[in-house]
């Protein structure tokens, strides 16, 4: 094993613990936004697509990179936008009633 692999394993394992600890605190009311929010986060893989598309020197790599960027960007932007839309709707009783008075 290389020292880098050992360190990588630590990062991996610690991330698992962080993930389970943090996410197990999300109440079930918020599970749909959680799902679509994490869905947006894994779109971060688009940075790999940036690297491929930006350094491509053959038509094949260009094509692969382009498709990957399109898909990845759609994942990221769509994911965050739709999650924000959902969470905008979650309001407290007072907020909802305040709004009704305004209307």
């Amino acid at each position, binding site marked *: 094993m290389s020292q880098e692999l050992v360190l990588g394993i630590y*990062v991996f394992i610690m*991330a*698992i613990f962080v*993930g389970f600890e*943090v*996410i197990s605190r*999300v*109440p079930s*009311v*918020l*599970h*749909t936004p*959680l*799902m*679509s*929010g*994490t*869905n*947006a*986060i*894994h*779109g*971060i*893989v*688009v940075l*790999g*697509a*940036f*690297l*491929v*598309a*930006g*350094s*491509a020197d053959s038509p094949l*790599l260009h094509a692969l*990179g382009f*498709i*990957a*960027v399109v*898909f990845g*960007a*759609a*994942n*990221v*932007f*769509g*994911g*965050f*936008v*739709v999650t*924000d839309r*959902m*969470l*905008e*709707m*979650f*309001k*407290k*009783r007072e907020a*909802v009633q305040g709004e009704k008075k305004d209307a």
Partner: protein
Amino acid sequence: MLDVRGSAIAVSYIIAAVLFIFGLKQLSSPSTARAGNRTAAIGMTIALAATLLDRQIISFWTIAIGTLIGAAMGIYFGRTVQMTAMPQMVALFNGMGGATAALVSVAEFLRLTRVGDSIGVGEATSIVLGTAIGAISFTGSIIAFGKLQEILPGKPLQFPLQRVVNGLILIGVIVLGAMVVMSGGTAILWALFAAALLLGAMFVLPIGGGDMPVVISILNSLTGLAAALTGFVLHNQMLVVAGVLVGASGTLLTLLMSTAMNRSVANVLFGAFGATNSDAASSASAVGHTVRQTTPEDTAIALAYARSVVIVPGYGLAVAEAQHTVRELATDLEGRGVDVKYAIHPVAGRMPGHMNVLLAEANVPYDQLLEMDQVNAARDDPSSPIYGMPILDVDRARNIIVLKRSMGHGFAGIDNALFYHEKTRMLFGDARQSLTQIGQALKSA
């Protein structure tokens, strides 16, 4: 040793990873959840901006055009999708993420092999797994999307020897993967990619539409894993952290749903639920209990004179988009001094927490949504496929009114003993129409 630019990029990635974690932490309360999503989006922006500083990138055109197109698509769909269609949307975006991870893995392989260096075992393994998992997640999500969007039939699609065929494809993927790790070869990696695409589709096709939420959750965690593997290939720890966070989230939600459905994950994936048990279900309904009907007017009177009304929204309410109507009805009842609450089963709707989103859309404040705290496992019929699933004790109510269009069986294809209960009255019709009629009747009551 990293130079100054490399160090700046590395530090940006660390900041992004921290922001992702903080974003998820903020998601744990409705009052901070929206800020949390934005925190994560800021992390994403920082990470992507830092990536553009990478010296490897020599041309920005493909990136710019690709991002524009992708962002336009994402924002358009994200803005316009109906809240009832949330599960499809998540499936679609998830598939795109999976495709990205697979394509990046393949491209990295092409780059690394062309340079002529032999790839290390660790890197090759990460590439193979990233390609396979990403591809499975892509086609699996597309099929799930098709089923939920009702482009494909929701019923489990089965054919003889299906499991054998799927098993063979799986073995093929594994063998091809091992070959790539051992001897390289671009052609073999492409074959692996194709086989994994096929496997993803074949794996989801035989699963019933009612089980799609679990499937999407699993595919979500698979895409997270594929992203983390890409991180190993690119030596980018931030990608590993982000991917693992998503993987953990998907895994937890999957376990939670299967607990709430009282079924093992394996049963969901391989049980072809809603197909095999249809005989038992129809025989049960043949017993010929009587069903009592009611009218919107009678319902309105019962509601007006109730002290406490508990609304148990199901998928029908979502499909009929009656969340606003039910909200108006509830406001009316509250005006009359009736105590109104919503009791939400953890797997009501088409994804976990889906009903809460729909009711929030209809301006129901989140502190009025009761989570099912008193669940009562296992009831009357041990031979039923949903025996032991946590249920809401609606039959403890003085009166039960069920709103649906017919005596149809829904996704699960099982008869519901509640419909024949002596305290139950059925109010047939589209949920929104029925609720509107009740509302009108209530005004004159």
